[in-house]
């Protein structure tokens, strides 16, 4: 089977799947405006990487790596990448749960999940804690700083100029 002169083989398709997921995930991580979407994109990219790992241990006409009875000589697909993927999947879900927890905390602190808004409020927050005037004023329309610097040293504007 060929398409546009390119022979369509199984490996082409499978690699397209794996790398496609990674690329879509990467694009999502980079482009998404919404934090939750970024977390989803991360999961997608991880899925792609897992698929790639499984592919790396695949063998034609081999059986699943489970011995059934005596014919242990039959060729099997590589069990090691499968074990690795098993681990990677669980790691992925752990990280994802943590990310969701953090996202909740972000929402609570800043009241938004928009990436650029988070970035700006973070900047304003750090600067506010430190008592530095922020350079950009783009955070102004989005509302006041949600957290007043509670125990920050009050710095009068005059004394900050050296």
């Amino acid at each position, binding site marked *: 089977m060929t398409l546009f002169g390119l022979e369509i083989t199984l490996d082409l398709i499978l690699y397209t799947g*794996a790398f496609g997921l990674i690329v879509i995930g990467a*694009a999502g991580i980079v482009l998404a405006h919404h934090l939750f979407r970024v977390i989803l994109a991360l999961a997608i990219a991880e899925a792609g990487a897992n698929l790639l790992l499984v592919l790396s241990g695949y063998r034609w006409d081999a059986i699943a790596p489970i*011995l059934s009875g005596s014919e242990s000589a039959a060729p099997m697909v*590589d069990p090691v990448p499968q*074990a690795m993927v098993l*681990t990677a999947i669980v790691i992925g879900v752990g990280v994802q749960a*943590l990310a969701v*927890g953090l996202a909740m905390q972000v929402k609570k602190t800043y009241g938004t999940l928009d990436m650029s808004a988070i970035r700006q409020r973070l900047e304003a927050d750090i600067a506010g804690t430190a008592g530095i005037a922020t350079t950009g004023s783009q955070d102004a329309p989005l509302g006041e700083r949600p957290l007043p610097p509670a125990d920050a040293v009050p710095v009068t504007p005059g004394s900050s100029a050296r």
Partner: protein
Amino acid sequence: MRNLASLLFAGGLGFLLMVFGLQFDFGNAPMLVGQAIQSAAPEQVGAANIVTAVVLGYRGIDTLGELAILFAASTAVGLILGHRHTSTKPDPDSGLILRAGGELLMPLLLVVGLYIILHGHLTPGGGFQGGVILAAAFFIPVLARPSTPLKHTGMMLIEGFSGAAFILIGLAALYSGGEFLQPLLDKGTLGNLVSAGTLPLLYLAVGLKVGAELAGLLAHLAAAEVSES
């Protein structure tokens, strides 16, 4: 404009990786280690499921690390969201049917989960897959009755002691003169339920740990209070 550039870069990444990927001799994995494990596993570990042999035997410490990651994630979520039970407005309890269904389902899930865990060294499945089902079993009451919180103490005990059990089994091997996580006990007959030495015990510890961990995690997430904006 920036979006377009990023898309281009992402596409470029895919293209480049594809180029590398297609250079491989797909379907003829070198399997240096895989082959050796396949031939050695029955004697060395005694598990019919070679993946299990790898996960708990050859790469046992990976699995320990993985458990620790789950534990760390759950602990971190607990640390971040933990101490805020003040004015959480729980979701209303679900209806009778769901509750009854949940109560019926729970023991069923427990049994299924334990089955999958205990047969992990024979058939596909094992501690992780079974653990997830256990987690579902533990978590279903919370879903059905959000107002009654998960029994944290019990979960914590299962969580702590099952993790400790995994390590202690490993240490037992170390102190009986072998290496950490060396398979102990009799290998038994390949394919029997009681075979593969300590492997099923390890998987049981993994399953309980995973189950308790995930249930705790879910409970934390479910109980978290986030101001609605």
